[in-house]
């Protein structure tokens, strides 16, 4: 019976105009989405390359200036930007801290339209004032991007629904169900086989089309085996989930229109309502305190610190006697007081800033527990993780940049407090930033979603009694 079913289904699919239309539609959707993603990635890499180029040019001019200054010549730049002052180097010749795209970044835009991919911390910039958001039109952020993740998470289930909502009800409506019932196979077996075959063909189609798109884009060799395994793995389990839902609706449902309405209702619940509802509840449970009030607090702390700048410097030097002793001249500029008070402000503001991070972490932890209610959330998150565009990735980048900003500032402190000029030899010792992408595990997501899908399938299989008559 399986063989017969398989052959019949294959013939049906090949002869159906729908399937031809569907393959063209899928090809178009996937290509358009992948192409968009790729364009974003190219722009990102180009922007970083340009910025690096600029840094190289400004470094070359810095070395030239240092050359001139060290050989006692006059230079024609404002005196506070002459790079023999360590603070001038730290402020006007910053390094670039960049986050390059990875091989699968084009798959999901994720948070990449919201955050910047490179930043240049200076010694004068405050860590918590570094602006990590990108200058994107908010309308664009509101509408989101047409990327592969959108096609997979939102549209693919709809295609599956269109493909499978009437497998059983059609037979019933066209009167062939009675004929089928006379075959030596139980109806639920038959529905499962039929849906299984449709699942298999659709999956094959998706894989072939995606690989074709990857080849056309020249991406095929960039992605490694694990990347492919995870990418297709997550698509597979997501499709399996929707086929399981379709199976349940098919065996418990009545007529085709009813089935379609139920399936679409479930789609709305899983893809639209659950994510937005969870987000809302998360915000309500762990609200982020007002940023405007934070600004108030920062201002007051800062104005007090500015008033006491000289006092703060004295205290600072008491805590760091090495700076006071090493410098026989003991001459103090604006920068000495400024940098010392900055440290104090940072220490005082850290608890305020930390509450924001902490609330956000709590929200995230809560969501990590509840996200399993909707595989759409899990799949979107996994695709973002694979692409390196998830919130966790940008959080990771932010941390690394802030660490680097501290290293960068600390590098100049001995120069400043020892009143030691910056020289050409010191150039090679300047700290450099290297972004380390953390590999975020998505194996768990694949396993859990497949377990949910298989659970649904076996539930339907064990609990159902498919009847021949529509009215029984």
């Amino acid at each position, binding site marked *: 019976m399986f063989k017969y079913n398989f052959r019949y289904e294959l013939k049906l699919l090949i002869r159906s105009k729908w399937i031809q239309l569907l393959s063209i539609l899928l090809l178009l959707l996937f290509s358009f989405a992948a192409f968009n993603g790729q364009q974003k990635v190219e722009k990102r890499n180009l922007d970083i390359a340009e910025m690096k180029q600029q840094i190289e040019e400004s470094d070359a001019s810095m070395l030239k200036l240092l050359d001139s200054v060290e050989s006692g010549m006059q230079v024609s730049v404002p005196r506070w930007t002459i790079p023999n002052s360590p603070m001038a180097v730290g402020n006007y010749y910053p390094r670039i801290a960049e986050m390059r795209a990875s091989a699968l970044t084009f798959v999901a835009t994720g948070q990449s339209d919201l955050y910047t991919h490179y930043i240049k911390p200076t010694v004068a910039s405050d860590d918590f004032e570094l602006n990590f958001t990108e200058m994107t039109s908010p309308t664009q952020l509101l509408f989101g991007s047409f990327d592969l993740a959108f096609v997979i998470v939102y549209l693919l289930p709809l295609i599956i629904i269109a493909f499978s909502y009437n497998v059983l009800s059609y037979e019933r409506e066209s009167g062939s169900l009675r004929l089928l019932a006379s075959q030596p196979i139980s109806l639920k077996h038959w529905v499962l086989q039929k849906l299984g075959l449709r699942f298999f063909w659709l999956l094959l189609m998706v894989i072939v089309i995606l690989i074709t798109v990857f080849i056309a884009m020249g991406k095929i060799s960039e992605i490694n085996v694990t990347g492919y395994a995870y990418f297709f793995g997550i698509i597979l389990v997501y499709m399996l989930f929707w086929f399981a839902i379709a199976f349940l609706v098919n065996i418990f449902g009545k007529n085709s229109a009813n089935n379609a309405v139920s399936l*679409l209702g479930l789609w709305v619940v899983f893809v639209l*309502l659950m994510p937005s509802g969870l987000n809302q509840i998360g915000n309500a449970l762990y609200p982020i305190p007002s940023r405007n009030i934070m600004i108030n607090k920062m201002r007051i702390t800062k104005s007090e610190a500015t008033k006491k700048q000289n006092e703060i410097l004295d205290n600072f030097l008491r805590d760091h006697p090495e700076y006071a002793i090493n410098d026989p001249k003991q001459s103090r500029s604006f920068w000495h007081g400024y940098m010392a008070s900055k440290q104090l402000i940072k220490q005082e503001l850290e608890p305020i800033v930390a509450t924001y991070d902490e609330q956000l972490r709590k929200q995230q932890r809560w969501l990590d527990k509840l996200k399993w209610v909707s595989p*759409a959330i899990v799949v979107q998150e996994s695709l973002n993780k694979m692409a390196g565009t998830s919130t966790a990735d940008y959080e990771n980048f932010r941390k690394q940049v802030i660490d680097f900003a501290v290293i960068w500032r600390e590098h100049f402190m001995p120069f400043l407090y020892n009143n030691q000029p910056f020289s050409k030899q010191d150039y090679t010792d300047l700290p450099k930033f290297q972004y380390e992408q953390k590999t975020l595990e998505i194996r768990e997501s694949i396993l859990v979603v497949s377990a949910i899908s298989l659970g649904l399938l076996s539930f339907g299989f064990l609990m159902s009694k498919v009847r021949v008559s529509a009215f029984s």
Partner: protein
Amino acid sequence: MIVKTFHKETKELLRDGRAKATFIIVLLLLSVAVWISHTKYKNANTEYEVAKQNEREVWDNQDAKNPHSAAHYGTYAFKPKYPLSLLDKGVDKYVGTSIFLEAHNRNEALYSAAADQTGISRFGELTPDFILLFIMPLLVILLCYNIFTKEKELGTFFLLKSTGASVTNLTLGKWLSVFTPVFLSVTILFLISGFMLSSLKDYGVFSWTPLLSMWGVYILYYIVFINIVMLISYVSKRSGISLVISLSVWIIACLGAPKVASTLAEDKNPYPTRQEFEAMIVKGKKEGLDGHNPWSKEAKLLEKQVLEEHGVDSLHQLPFNFDAYRMQKGEEHQAEVYFKHYKQLKEQYYKQTKTYKSLAVVSPFLPTRFLSMAIAQTDYATHWDFSDAAENYRIKSQKFLNDNFAENAAYGEWSYKADASTWTDLPVFEYNPPVLSAILKGNRSYLIILGFWTLLSFGTLFLITKLK
């Protein structure tokens, strides 16, 4: 015939458990969303008032100091929330709410709510606009996908025709039976929101006219959807097919079109990255006068000019402090640089808007989306307006401070300290958003497109039902 059809359809709808349940669920969701928004709106408003007042106090209570130090110390402009943001949050989540106003720099609004949220927030929020824009059309589809196909499937369509009833009247009756529940629920929701808003203590800015306009926009939007879905039901043979086609229309109009539009807008007219934009500003600033640098070529030129103008040969003889004068001139140059680059940015924004407008022809969702958030004053245009107002205020306050320095101190007298009472003389930043008539004028084309959609869908529906 119209009344009879209306009665029959309404009765059927009331008896249909599924339709009733869905309707109740949607209304519940909508009420929850309005309630959540209402609490958030109240909190945000209180916080805004507190922040604004505190910031002003911080500014007013500065000690005696040099006006230019005060200029560097700066102040903040906070963006208020408007009553209708209760119904449509628009792009509010993606733009910052506070702008730091200081000497020499025009800063971007900081702290967008989206950056303070987890990744899941990109799925959307359970807000009234989400339900009004996405879920209500789905409800419309559910209510009328089988409005004609059920008659065909049960064979009653031909019976109806054989009674000699006009199909137009039949269509009208059916149309009214779908429109009435949608109309009633949306109207009640808007009325409740209106009463909620007018019962707030500080409801000074709330007025019923914008709310009524927004209500009108949504009613038109649902009319378009009802017409389209009824048309599909009329030409389809089976309910299943009618449903699948109606849903495809919904997907294309509400999910696909906005994403395609934003992708095309960004591809055709991209914004510079923040770092690029800043680099351009730095370059622009370097090409002119820097108020802090008396040794530059431009500063020397200015010096010569001013001396000639006043017919004196030393800066000390000038009737004002030249340091402050140069500072102000530098400020003006920098303001010009910002103006130029923000103008370029705005041009990109206008071009992007054009792309959105041209795609609005394809999807009734887009004109509704833009009109709704424009009326709610939560669209990008309002944000631009706020940011420009803050910049104007910044320029004026810099002039106020530099003038104080120029008039009260001698040349070279950097130790000059303005009296602590000076700071209160700086006018408070007040922002008045564009009024409704201006908003509607600015979004004329979206209004026309939505009107066009309404007429076209009505026309096609009645024409096809008459002909076929």
